[in-house]
């Protein structure tokens, strides 16, 4: 099963093909392929035990796949050098308790083989809200602080690909908002992000594309628009003439229920421009526009639908 992608192994940030992993008699990952384009933010969704963390660990060379291959930023995953511009926050985030937060960052900069000034390292700690704890030993940190430190570790060596495995599991709502802002700023800087999160709302807000895993297989994937499918526009209208109705029908299939007209817009329609234009045209045609309400299937509804009806999705 493969995920649609325009990026090749040479151009993609992550290109994984045909990954398989078996633990004893249990098949954890079964023929998973996925691609993260450069500068793209891809969300990995799925229930517990779907194989998300196993896929991430195989991508990073932490788990040896039984079959399949990985390319990272154009280099084969078997070459440790392919990880030189990658930042990773593991699901199980623990850092040397006998080091200070600043020392942990210096260690990771050294291991990455890159040059990052102490000042820049301190700035990264500031970005995750740990500026005033830089010289404290990690053993005194709460779980939330350790996860923030893990985020700083993932970001400190100026990566071109960041892999975040459940980055907000120990964070409060403020911390979650910080992570969203960080992911958005990474995308603005052209940094690719592979985000595994249970929090669907989080994924929906920041990801360009989503890959849904279930029972170790790709159950569905695509852009949010592709996955969420049709978008609807509910309009309460008065004085709808035949010409006005034609204008509505030109926007999409129309279902009428008294004054309420529901227009089914194409999946790729840009609501931000299509809706004001339609409303302006209707007003121009003398229609009384009382209410306009766009609606869309939520990612949560869609995910549950996919997981409850496996095998019905095109990937």
């Amino acid at each position, binding site marked *: 099963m493969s995920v649609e992608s325009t990026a090749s192994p040479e151009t993609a940030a992550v290109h994984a093909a045909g990954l398989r992993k078996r633990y004893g008699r249990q098949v954890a990952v079964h023929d998973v392929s996925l691609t993260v384009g450069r500068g793209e933010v891809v969300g990995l969704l799925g229930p517990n035990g779907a194989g998300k963390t196993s896929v991430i660990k195989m991508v990073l060379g932490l788990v040896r796949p039984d079959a399949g291959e990985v390319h990272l930023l154009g280099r084969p995953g078997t070459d440790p050098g392919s*990880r030189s511009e*990658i930042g*990773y*926050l*593991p699901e199980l985030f623990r850092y040397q308790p*006998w080091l200070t937060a600043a020392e942990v960052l210096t260690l990771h900069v*050294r*291991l990455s*083989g890159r040059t990052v000034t102490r000042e820049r390292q301190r700035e990264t700690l500031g970005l995750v809200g740990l500026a005033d704890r830089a010289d404290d030993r990690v053993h005194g940190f709460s779980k939330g602080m350790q996860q923030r430190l893990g985020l700083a570790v993932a970001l400190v060596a100026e990566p071109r690909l960041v892999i975040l495995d459940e980055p907000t599991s120990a964070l409060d709502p403020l911390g979650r908002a910080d992570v969203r802002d960080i992911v958005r700023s990474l995308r603005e800087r052209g940094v690719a992000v592979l985000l595994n999160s249970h929090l669907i709302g989080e994924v929906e807000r920041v990801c360009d594309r989503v890959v849904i895993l279930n029972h170790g297989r790709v159950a569905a994937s695509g852009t949010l628009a592709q996955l969420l499918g049709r978008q609807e526009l509910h309009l309460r209208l008065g004085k709808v003439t035949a010409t006005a109705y034609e204008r509505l029908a030109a926007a999409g299939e129309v279902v009428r229920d008294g004054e309420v007209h529901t227009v089914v817009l194409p999946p790729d329609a840009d609501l931000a421009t299509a809706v004001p234009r339609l409303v302006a045209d209707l007003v121009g045609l003398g229609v009384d526009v009382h209410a306009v309400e766009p609606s869309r299937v939520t990612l949560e509804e869609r995910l549950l639908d996919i997981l409850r009806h496996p095998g019905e999705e095109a990937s």
Partner: protein
Amino acid sequence: MTARTVLTVAALTLREASRRRVVWALLGMTVVLLALGSWGFSRVADEFGGLGILEARIAASTILNLVMFGLSLIAALGTAFLAGPTLAGEVESGIALAVLARPVRRSAVVVGKWLGLVVFGGSFVVVAGLGQFFIVDATVGYWPPQAFTGLALLALQTTTLLTLALLLSTVISPMASGIVAVGLFGATWIAGVVGGLGAAFDNQALAQMGDVSRLVLPTDGLWRGAMSAFQHPALGFFLAEAEGFPFLGTGLPGTGYLLYAVAWVAAVLGLAVLTFGRRDL
């Protein structure tokens, strides 16, 4: 890049050793041992006042081997319990995940850990051993004939055991790897003593037990060599009986045995690299 990783991880391991409680435990035990030693040797000087200088020095050299055995035990315990958690513990806790996702070879991480532990264990043996020698010299006026050769053999013994603990820590839990390594160390020493008794009483089967144990884990062979380097040359007269006594050496190990010990360390380290390289994290 690989050399830099090795050095970075070695420095990290040394820093870890210096900041963990095990070091303070080691230091405490060493101070107690040195204090007891200095009290004991001052008693030798007093009690054996009626004897000649030679007899006092022979007595001191015999007791020195006993004290150095305690020291080698502390070094073995300390490094084995440092080596255990360093790999298995980091895998168990998750610390290894972030480190190994960096552009580093796992082999470089294992060798770096090993190098850091060797420097730590070796430094401990040399510093604590020299401290003990100075005490003996000050109280009884005895300085071991081949002090540095003996300390080098003790450092190699420590290296042997910590390499084994490192290998074990790639396959079993942190604490278990330390316990198994120290257990094997003790078993080999006892097998060596039994083998010595077998040689003294012309029992081939028992004597072979000692020979085989010194090949399986070279710690006892190196320890017996170190004792020979520390003890008074006059004890050479008792060489025939020395084999039956656990704290008398019967001579320095030959080049062949030393090369074997080095090859043993290299092979076990290579195995640790292979095992850790294949492990899923």
